[in-house]
């Protein structure tokens, strides 16, 4: 079998686990990255506070940094933050988030499409976070997105694949990597998304709020790999009614 790699904007990755770096101590980032086997780590951009420790001292050098545009309420905000990210000098990747809603933190698909158009034209590798809607995903693909990142459930909720049926539609219909982002709370949910044919999983809160962060990173890694294998293998069929024996039906003691 050909090497099974995740390709985003011409960059190939062996790992299908994108790890967030929020909500836990910098000292644990290295261990979490190693246990997760992650090659892409997300980060945010904020105003500099003099004297604060810098995350760049803790991110392993070999990982690809994926800056997000969190804190953006409009397309303009997101474009501005993407420009800052590029100036910070870690490449052209951007995880686009446009979130005007402060209660559920749901992304605004229309403004996300608008920002994708601008940033893709400027040469960014745009990975938009979106509410899983097929029409919006098509528009994002047309706008030049390099991957689509539909939410499983509200950010930070650990509720899992609440939007499962709609993510499946994106997997089936969109010819770009589909990366399930937000809501994945446990390894079994990551595994399920991978079984469905998702190309990768992004998680942060599920680890950050776990008892042992590096061990949970490792558990997610195993689950994502298992789900990917199951997807390639092709899941066994489900009987709606009745059962079917797995053992020979002849030669039993009943003759």
């Amino acid at each position, binding site marked *: 079998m050909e090497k099974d790699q995740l390709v985003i904007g011409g960059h190939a990755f062996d790992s299908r686990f994108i*790890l*967030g*770096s*929020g*909500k*836990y101590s*910098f000292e644990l*980032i290295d261990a979490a990255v190693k246990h997760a086997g992650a090659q892409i780590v*997300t*980060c*945010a*951009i*904020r*105003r*500099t506070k*003099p*004297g604060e420790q*810098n*995350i*760049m001292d803790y991110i392993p050098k070999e990982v690809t*940094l994926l*800056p*997000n545009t*969190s804190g953006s309420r409009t397309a303009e905000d997101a474009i*501005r933050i993407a*420009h*800052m*990210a590029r*100036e*910070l000098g*870690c490449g052209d990747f951007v995880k686009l988030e446009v979130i005007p809603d402060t209660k559920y933190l749901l992304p605004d698909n229309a403004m996300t499409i608008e920002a994708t158009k601008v940033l893709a034209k400027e040469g960014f590798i745009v990975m938009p*976070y979106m509410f899983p809607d097929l029409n919006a995903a098509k528009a994002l693909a047309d706008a030049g997105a390099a991957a689509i990142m539909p939410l499983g459930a509200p*950010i*930070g909720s650990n509720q899992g694949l609440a939007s499962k049926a709609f993510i499946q539609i994106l997997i089936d219909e969109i010819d770009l990597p589909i990366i399930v*982002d*937000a809501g994945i709370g446990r390894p079994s949910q990551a595994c399920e998304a991978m079984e469905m044919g998702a190309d990768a999983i*992004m*998680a*942060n*809160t599920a680890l*950050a709020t776990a008892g042992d962060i590096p061990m949970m990173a490792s558990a997610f890694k195993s689950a994502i790999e298992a789900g990917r294998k199951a997807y390639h293998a092709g899941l066994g069929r489900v009987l709606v009614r009745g059962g079917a024996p797995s053992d020979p039906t002849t030669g039993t003691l009943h003759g």
Partner: protein
Amino acid sequence: MVQINGEAVNAAGKTVGAYLKETGIDPQRVAVEYNNKILSKEAYDTTQMSDDDVVEIVNFVGGGC
């Protein structure tokens, strides 16, 4: 006064580079937006701030979902 990261700072007349040095900020670790445009690192030492300028100094922090 110059608006730096949302606060009024008495920095008119100083260059961006001098301000960063004075506050102990490593210029290699930040991006600077000067009146809504990204300021290239080469321009830090030649860009003199004036009253009512708006400056944003940002860096990467932990983030995810």
